[in-house]
């Protein structure tokens, strides 16, 4: 199995942090401002995002602590040890399915955005198939290759986001973000639900930690990853609301793209920033997709004791079917919501239970040994 070969599959703490961030920065960056504005209804949405980031760090802390108890082993392997073979396998399979569904969702959102902004007449199926064709090549290469790809692309993605935020300031009005807490703190709490869902992705650390060459740095890595994402998300939400107003953000489908379409440097020197933005965003989606795809295939591989590459190929039709399943955009967003809820249950609640169980078990073992 892959994990036995530690010298080959080892990634640094920086790579782990980048992977955590990259797994989170996916669809959220495009749709988050809208879902936040809808549930918060005051310009304080960015505060909800910041708070959710802190909550995500708490969950991330639990996830890493749990993984660190079982060095060199992934969640799929140690979950069987904590709750027994069958329940553990079921939970592991659930997580695999979660990754497969996430990958399918990501694939479809990518297809929809490309169809809307770049290739209007190209069948969306072709776009998605091409995307998968490239992704499988990446996924089967294993975690080292994925880590290096992300190491290469994440700085570019962050750079383009920063450029986006800077350019948007021409249209940004601070007054649109005011009054701060005009209706008290209650609206901010309402925004936590949609924003915490967009932080799902940090749970890749459940299997990434096992590959880390220095697992004791995992906490730092996950905090860095979540922190980076939280800052980026907060800025994007603030920029979207600041340049479009809360009311307008509620009405647009892809608020971040609308902000990008507002961008225009004086004298027509630089127009159509959104084209550049879409292209780089597809790269961003690609890296996230590969991570999810890998996570799912790795799980199936480890649960059945076979090579993960086999499942990487086998899961492709499933991912594709999930991607073409929602018949329209609204159903697609619904699917995204369900995936978010599932992630909250699987990575917010189960790891806490596991951590407690593992601690209890260890105590029992210690007792037995003492006797």
């Amino acid at each position, binding site marked *: 199995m892959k994990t036995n070969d530690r010298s080959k599959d080892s990634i640094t703490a920086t790579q782990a942090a980048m992977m955590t961030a990259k797994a989170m920065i996916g669809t959220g960056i495009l749709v988050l401002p809208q879902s936040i504005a809808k549930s918060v209804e005051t310009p304080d949405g960015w505060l909800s995002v910041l708070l959710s980031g802190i909550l995500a760090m708490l969950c991330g802390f639990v996830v890493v602590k749990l993984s660190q108890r079982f060095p060199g082993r992934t969640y799929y392997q140690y979950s069987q040890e904590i709750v027994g073979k069958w329940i553990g396998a079921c939970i592991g399979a659930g997580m695999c399915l979660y990754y497969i569904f996430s990958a399918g969702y990501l694939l479809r959102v990518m297809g929809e955005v490309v169809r809307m902004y770049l290739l209007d007449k190209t069948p969306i199926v072709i776009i998605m198939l091409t995307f998968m064709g490239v992704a499988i090549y990446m996924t089967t290469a294993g975690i080292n290759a994925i880590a290096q790809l992300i190491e290469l692309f994440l700085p570019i993605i962050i750079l383009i986001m920063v450029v986006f935020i800077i350019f948007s300031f021409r249209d940004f009005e601070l*007054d649109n973000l005011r009054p701060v807490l*005009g209706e008290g703190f209650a609206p901010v709490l309402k925004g936590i639900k949609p924003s915490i869902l967009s932080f799902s992705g940090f749970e890749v650390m459940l299997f990434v930690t096992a590959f880390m060459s220095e697992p004791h740095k995992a906490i730092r890595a996950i905090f860095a990853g979540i922190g980076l994402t939280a800052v980026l998300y907060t800025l994007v939400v603030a920029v979207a609301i600041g340049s*479009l107003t809360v*009311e*307008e953000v509620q009405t647009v489908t892809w608020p971040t793209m*609308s902000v990008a*379409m*507002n*961008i225009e440097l004086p004298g027509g020197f630089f*127009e159509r920033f959104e084209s550049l933005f879409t292209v780089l965003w597809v790269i961003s989606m690609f890296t996230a997709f590969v991570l999810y795809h890998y996570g799912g295939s790795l799980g199936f591989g480890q649960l059945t004791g076979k090579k993960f590459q086999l499942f990487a190929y086998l899961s492709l039709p499933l991912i594709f079917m999930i991607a073409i399943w929602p018949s329209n955009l609204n159903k697609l967003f619904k699917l995204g919501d369900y995936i978010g809820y599932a992630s909250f249950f699987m990575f917010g609640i189960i790891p806490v239970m596991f951590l407690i169980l593992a601690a209890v078990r260890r105590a029992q073992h210690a007792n037995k040994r003492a006797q």
Partner: protein
Amino acid sequence: MQISARNRSALLLIIVFPLLLAGCWDRNEIEETGIALGIGIDFPDEQEKGARPIIAMTHQFALPNQFSESTSSKVQKDYVNMSSKGPIVFDNIRELSTRSARPPNYEHLQVIVISEKAARAIDLKNVINFFLRNTETRRSIRVVLSHGKASDIFQQQKSTKTPALELRELTDNYRKTLRIPPPLTLGNMSEHLTGQSSFVMQSAASSPEGAKLSGGAVIKGTTARMIGFLSETETVGVNWLLGGNHSNGIVEGVEPNSGAMLGYEVRKITSSIQPIVQGDNISFRVKIKTTGKLREDWAFPGDAFDADFINRAEQATAAKIKQIAEKALAKTQRQYKVDVAHFGKRLSIKQPAVWKRVKDGWEERFSRMPVSIEVEVDIQEFGTRGTKRN
């Protein structure tokens, strides 16, 4: 030279892949697309009774320069206008396909002109809805209102420039004069309309010399319809209330001692609105601060080296600005009952609790609220000649 099997297959792939690249669904030949530069939206007079109202649209397409100098010495027009009619915008565009082989492309659309009649009769949220949904149309397209018919704006008069491009450049001139309101982008317009806030937009009129921007048009946020025009002076007043944006503009004051005229050039305007809440009474205090320079005076000797004279000039200019701003308020606040300078927004920021109580029917309430204006003028310099006598 020997080519290994591996290299041979790689070579084959390199040859095959470009073939796949060419098979593209979304190929658009530039010669075959009609690049729309301007769109005019009119509300025709001859409406069928009982039926849904129809709108008329004018598309201005760019024509690529043709090499036809030999045929005639006449200046070739580099645009073509096409008009259509239909109940909704999309209908109009589909109608174009029956007449032009080139599918319209809106990626370079510069300006949308909505006629006064259309803006008074139709909900503007619906008029611009198509453009907001369409991904080709950028949110930074300028929107202008027209006195008279929008299609007239796109008729070339004496200028040789394409009218849509000319108009687009004019909209950016708000930096050079106070007589036109700041330009309105499609995105801003939509933001105002969804937020139900009233605003002033640029208005154009056709004249023998071509399109001309004159004054502003007031759109009422709650009804999303035009409510009236502002004269040039009233527009200047609104600009003073809005502050910011303008870096240039002239105010003609009258020096109190001699009754002589003064020309003050604006460098910077900052306007701050202060809501004052006393129980149920809400009033506002507007503080306008401006710095600039003395451009011209018709006084004798008009000694700008003398601080007293500068002081008097500052006061004269301030008095004039105050008068203009009050005129603008009288028109917008009292007559049209709209809040175009965002007094409500200020109140919502400073006193969110009070705002929650009064935000329903805000503009009606606002129209009865007292507003006081204070102006502070700071003349920083007076050019290369200070006085007319030594």
